[in-house]
């Protein structure tokens, strides 16, 4: 019997509106309301005095590059990066090689997760065959293979008729469709946000309209089909406003904010550092404020990272030739604390809700709460500890992080997956073989 007693922390469990100094107990990997006197004597005790104790964080948007691109990341390293960032549940995107558009590849990912992942890992499947946007993927088989959502993330289905059928079909199967909103006709050769900085740098601009047009399309399709469409990595003011308005009209859409869009603006590209190149791109100050506000008022109900690893030699090149994407799981909590909490915008329970309960609910995962009998996934952090982001210390295989060298406030001290400590604030604690 394994017994865990987390003492004296400020326990914040948004799903149960709990926010008080107290204790959290786990027995055999599940949360319990209390320990018997005998159990107390046997328990492994973690003193969380002065720290925050919350459900393990949930990230529904990560790229683990397995199978096929394991020089960038794999399930083993990616799950350790998650643990170091306080995440205990992650959802990986299907743009692997081969792409996860068939149940065999999903099975392969799930098998690897069983062997290699130290956090709970859930796969997604594609919307279309080969992510080519030409024919429906076997979404029913993917569902049977236990994908938790379908998405062509990294690409966007351009054919509106096909997208309509895809969302209708996924709706029948009760699967959320996650969409990467990008009108390809407006982004040919684009490397960064279109605006003053793209003009100054001579880089081809990526207009906000390319994102807003697809968000508007998806709202129309969600309204007419009744399906739930989730807008991934919303980066524009127009996009946030469209989603907010659609929700007011009762349409089943949801939205996701990324730490990097809430932290940086396109000015960050001024030195042509490809660690500031991602898709969608960093936008203007006005867009950044809209993303921050969207998270505050719930237009964007979840925060996810879009953790997208690339090796240094892939990123060390001319800006327009570099691949899109940045890693973010190991910095997300601190960045979100800086953007929303230390700034005074959100109390901790509200911020943590968007990183635990809400994303778990979005895709129907058994995670994101400290309710009795829930799986004992816990994140313990010091919201005020300052630390400097050192890419050499990442658990991720890659170092393409825009916060490299910056000092952030908020440090994960312990990560607990199913009652077992997997991160102690400095290093990964390898799970005992079972």
């Amino acid at each position, binding site marked *: 019997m394994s017994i865990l007693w987390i003492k004296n922390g400020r326990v914040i469990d948004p799903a149960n509106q709990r926010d008080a100094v107290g204790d959290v107990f786990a027995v055999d990997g599940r949360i319990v309301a209390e320990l018997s006197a005998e159990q107390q004597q046997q328990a492994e005790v973690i003193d969380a005095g002065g720290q925050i104790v919350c459900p393990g964080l949930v990230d529904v948007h990560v790229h683990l590059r397995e199978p096929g691109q394991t020089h960038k990341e794999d399930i083993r390293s990616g799950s350790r990066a998650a643990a170091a960032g306080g995440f205990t549940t992650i959802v990986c995107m299907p743009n692997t090689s081969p792409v996860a558009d068939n149940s065999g590849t999903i099975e392969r990912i799930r098998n690897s997760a069983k062997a290699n992942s130290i956090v709970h890992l859930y796969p997604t499947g594609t919307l279309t065959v080969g992510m080519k946007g030409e024919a429906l993927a076997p979404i029913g088989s993917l569902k049977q293979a236990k994908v938790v959502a379908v998405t062509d993330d990294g690409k966007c289905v351009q054919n509106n008729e096909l997208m309509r059928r895809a969302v209708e079909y996924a709706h029948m199967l009760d699967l959320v469709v996650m969409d990467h909103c990008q009108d390809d006709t407006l982004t040919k050769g684009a490397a960064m946000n279109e605006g003053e900085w793209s*003009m100054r740098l001579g*880089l081809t*601009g990526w207009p906000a309209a390319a994102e807003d047009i697809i968000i508007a399309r998806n709202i129309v399709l969600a309204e007419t089909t009744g399906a739930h469409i989730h807008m991934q990595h919303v980066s524009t003011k127009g996009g946030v406003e469209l989603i907010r308005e659609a929700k007011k009209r009762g349409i089943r859409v949801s939205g996701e904010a990324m730490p990097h869009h809430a932290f940086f603006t396109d000015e960050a590209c001024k030195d042509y550092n490809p660690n500031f190149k991602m898709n969608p791109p960093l936008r203007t100050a006005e867009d950044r404020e809209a993303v921050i506000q969207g998270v505050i008022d719930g237009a964007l109900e979840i925060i996810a990272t879009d953790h997208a690893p690339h090796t240094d030699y892939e990123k060390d090149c001319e800006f327009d030739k570099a691949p899109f994407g940045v890693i973010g799981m190991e910095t997300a909590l601190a960045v979100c604390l800086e953007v929303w909490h230390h700034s005074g915008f959100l109390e901790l329970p509200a911020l943590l809700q968007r990183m635990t309960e809400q994303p778990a609910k979005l895709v129907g995962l058994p995670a994101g709460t400290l309710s009795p009998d829930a799986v004992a996934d816990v994140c313990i952090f010091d919201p005020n500890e300052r630390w400097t982001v050192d890419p050499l210390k990442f658990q991720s295989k890659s170092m393409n992080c825009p916060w490299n060298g910056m000092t952030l406030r908020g440090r994960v001290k312990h990560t607990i997956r199913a009652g077992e400590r997997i991160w102690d604030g400095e290093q990964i604690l390898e799970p005992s073989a079972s």
Partner: protein
Amino acid sequence: MSTTTTWRHKDLTSIERLTREEIETVHHYAAQFKQSLGRTQKKLPTLRGKTVINLFIEPSTRTRVAFEIAAKRLSADVTTIEEAASSLVKGESLRDTAEVIQALNADLIVMRHRSPGSADYLGKILNIPVINAGDGAHEHPTQALLDTFTMKERLGDLAGRKVTILGDILFSRVARSNIWALKKLGAHITLCGPATLIPESFRSLGCEITHNLRAALADADVVMLLRIQHERQASTHFPSLGEYKALYSLNEERASWLKPDAIIMHPGPVNRGVEIDSALADSKQSVILEQVTNGIVTRMAALFLCLTKANELNNAQAPAQS
């Protein structure tokens, strides 16, 4: 012309980073080198023993040749590498290519490349100076230096002068570099051409934008034409060369809207009959060939400053060692 000279850079990658004094320093040395052009013995010993590599990853004639001649006039050894003949076509990264060139004991690299920011990237990687000979739509600093040098020869001080840049601004590194240079030298800039080729964001650099050609020409001291790129006519930016010509080509009638002493410039290569009527390109108002000649002396000045002044600077800043 200023006699106090300033140069604080290892590389010349953009005009944006230069001060007015540094631009004037280039002009100062260009004027000195221009005096040597009339001699029978044109070669100066200034850069003897130095090796200059021209790394041209995008086609170019006049810039490449001007740099070659400039280096040779200063007695440097110069080798040109073009994309087709480089290992880049075999998939070698730009970093590796550049480090190989440095390891071959080159003293300076002149680079033209399609990717914006590639010259800055190279400058950060290498210890030797890098001169940007055009990086995508970002900058073409030596073009702006020679253009402003040419304007000053004709007009004197550029403060308060009005310069109209006409044509494809969006894709033009020449426009961007000239805008930075002209702003620093105190000139007023008007951009003119089809709306699809002039993003409104250029106003943030202090430029005026008009789509009315007559208004743009009426009080200009300089009209700078930019090459309309044939390859773009099939894209969505304008309907046809014919329509561009109908709206924005500089012809005899439109040239009569200019002040009589206004000058006409073009960085080349000229599409005769598209941006400008053939006769106008050869008229007394045109300084197109002077630009080419000044392109040599300006680049001599750039090479000289990057190879000598930058070293002096480095030595001055290096901690005393015995």
